[in-house]
């Protein structure tokens, strides 16, 4: 169980704010910190890992105090057992895949198992420069695990990868999490990723935690019963016959929706809209 209750002055997109972060994560859970860039998500990871100190408050890991401003307790980074994976991999360029893991490992015997777990056995003697983005991130994940962390901290790990690779690595991460059961915290601004991986999410806006709960509770609009709901941004509105055709960007996909005059009349290009239909309507086809 991780219990964070701290304040920290941070710079956000709208200026400086005193962030009050109250975050509880059960042991073995998968939690996501969700929000725009500069909202304070990464700061929470850094506070937990001990890379940045809170201005005030207490952090407990499994009941043990690792930071307490009032009592002057501050357990150093290397004693907090946090493994970090960043968006930009941060691998040692002069070392091979295997050497990268050995350097970080607490027990060299585990290195081959971890390399196999992330499917890099064939490439274990390669240097990072010869690997693809997805392969580098697999190595970064294995290296973080080699130090046998109690907490895995992932800071937008898949943001630089293309959609297919992101999808594959998300599945692998889910598998690894269920196998090893390490408490994991993922910083993300991708709702689909959060839905897929996390069992708890904290939504952060400009240094303020605005809501938390399961991804369904936090992201789903509960005012309409539709089960097929997406939010998107209107790119174009065109009149066709007596109807209107709306082009809507949903995540990275473009959808077109037919609207009647009454539906279209209070919508303008650039508006955020909710697209929904009944769960009975979509047809399903295996691809």
């Amino acid at each position, binding site marked *: 169980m991780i219990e964070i209750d701290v304040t920290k002055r941070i710079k956000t997109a709208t200026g400086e704010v005193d962030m009050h972060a109250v975050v509880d994560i059960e042991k073995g859970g998968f939690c996501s910190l969700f929000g725009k860039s500069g909202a304070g998500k990464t700061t929470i990871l850094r506070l937990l890992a001990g890379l940045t100190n809170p201005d005030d408050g207490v952090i407990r890991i499994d009941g043990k105090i690792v930071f307490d401003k009032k009592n002057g307790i501050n357990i150093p980074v290397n004693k907090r057992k946090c493994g970090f994976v960043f968006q930009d991999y941060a691998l040692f360029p002069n070392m091979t895949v295997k050497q990268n893991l050995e350097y970080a490992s607490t027990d060299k015997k585990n290195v081959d198992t971890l390399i196999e777990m992330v499917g890099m056995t064939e490439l274990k003697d390669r240097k990072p420069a010869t690997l693809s983005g997805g392969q580098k991130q697999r190595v970064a994940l294995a290296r973080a695990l080699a130090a046998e962390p109690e907490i895995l901290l992932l800071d937008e790990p898949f943001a630089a990868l293309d959609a297919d690779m992101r999808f594959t690595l998300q599945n692998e991460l889910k598998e690894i999490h269920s196998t090893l059961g390490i408490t994991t915290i993922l910083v993300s601004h991708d709702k689909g990723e959060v839905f897929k991986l996390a069992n708890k999410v904290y939504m952060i806006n400009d240094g303020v935690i605005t809501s938390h709960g399961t991804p369904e509770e936090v992201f789903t609009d*509960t*005012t309409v019963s539709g*089960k097929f709901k997406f939010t998107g941004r209107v790119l174009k509105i065109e009149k066709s016959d007596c109807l209107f055709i709306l082009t809507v960007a949903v995540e990275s996909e473009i959808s077109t929706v037919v609207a*009647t005059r009454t539906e279209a009349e209070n919508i303008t290009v650039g508006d955020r809209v909710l697209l929904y239909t009944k769960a009975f309507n979509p047809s399903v086809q295996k691809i």
Partner: protein
Amino acid sequence: MNVLKAEILFFKTSGQIIICELNTHGETATAVILDSPADMDYLTPGGHVNMLFKATEVILAVGDLGTLSLNNRFKGKITSMDTGDIFTSIKIDFGTGIESVITTKSAKRMNLEVGMEVTALVKANEIAIGKII
């Protein structure tokens, strides 16, 4: 989108599917939805909700309906028509307004015009239930 205020008469669940009987402006209506009543705090008998359904899913009929599977039948008068080459948008009043979008071809075949009495038909699984906000 048609949005009709309605009173919940009762509902019944089977697994994740809920069938909900409603009264909207004196007509009974049935909605079938996929949800959990626990997530819908506004789903209580006697409570008021919005019934939502798309105008393109509203069927129109004239005269005797014979035997039809459709539960939701709203009889009213046509108040306005917006005729396009392919589609026609028709507004009907049965105590409240309803919009139906059908092909212009059908509207012509049925000789629809303002003032005519028609029945608007909606399948129960096309109706969503929404909280009134």
